[in-house]
């Protein structure tokens, strides 16, 4: 069980949205993390490598900033089943780049742009996400 945190989640979501809004207004680009991270890998096709790396560096630094600001280290619960996490990572990486976006590119920016492709993609990954957790927790019982 995790605690229901509507206010913190809404505020956090608005910060994510603000980052996406500023990225398009300032740089004209979509804040899609699978696109940003995927293009850090070879083959390199454009000259934005440093910008994308800087964005990812900001992502990685964020929990330490939050920890320093609140005086409480950021905690989380990650599955210790490493084989499961390896499969999950492969699927997330492959699927997000193959489908042209993830929760941020399709789910946040795509929905905000009212893109029909992103609406379809978001419905599909939400659907298989719900289904996967249902099977894992209530059918297999893991």
């Amino acid at each position, binding site marked *: 069980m995790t605690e*229901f945190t509507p206010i913190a989640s809404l505020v956090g979501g608005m910060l*994510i949205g603000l980052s996406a809004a500023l990225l398009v207004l300032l740089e004209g680009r*979509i804040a899609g993390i699978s696109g940003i*991270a995927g293009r850090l890998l070879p083959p390199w096709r454009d000259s934005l490598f440093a910008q994308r790396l800087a964005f990812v560096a900001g992502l990685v630094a964020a929990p330490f900033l939050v920890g320093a600001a609140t005086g409480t280290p950021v905690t989380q619960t990650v599955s210790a089943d490493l084989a499961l996490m390896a499969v999950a*990572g492969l699927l997330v990486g492959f699927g997000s780049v193959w489908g042209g976006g993830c929760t941020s590119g399709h789910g946040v920016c795509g929905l*905000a742009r009212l893109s029909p492709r992103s609406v379809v993609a978001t419905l599909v990954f939400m659907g298989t996400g719900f289904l996967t957790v249902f099977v894992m927790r209530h059918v297999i019982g893991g």
Partner: protein
Amino acid sequence: MPILVNLALGLLFGVGLVVSGMSNPAKVLNFLDLFGSFDPSLAFVMGGAVIVAFIGFRLARMRAKPVLAAAFQLPTRRDIDARLIVGPALFGIGWGLGGFCPGPALTALGLGAAGTLVFVPAMLAGMWAARMLAERT
């Protein structure tokens, strides 16, 4: 200048992920567990993010070009193809297995959980494989 802007925006995005609870896989998995320990918090993350981003894209559409770059680089495709179904379907399965999507996984990297340290390289390998396969087809 663009480097610092991107660093700041990555930081802002990451802080949003941490504050919202999105960077905690347990919270994500409970959101996806409709018929069990359902935690609706992440609907508020999505709602808040989409509303603010919507305003940003509206403002962007009123401009000829972005403030710091020569031109907008926004997707123009509108077709629904097999890749748009298969990719997100696989992504959703992985998301449901691990509780991580790409942003939160990268944000969690420095916290050093073993599961994250396995997930992120696997994710990058998957991204690379998809790019290579896309180049061939």
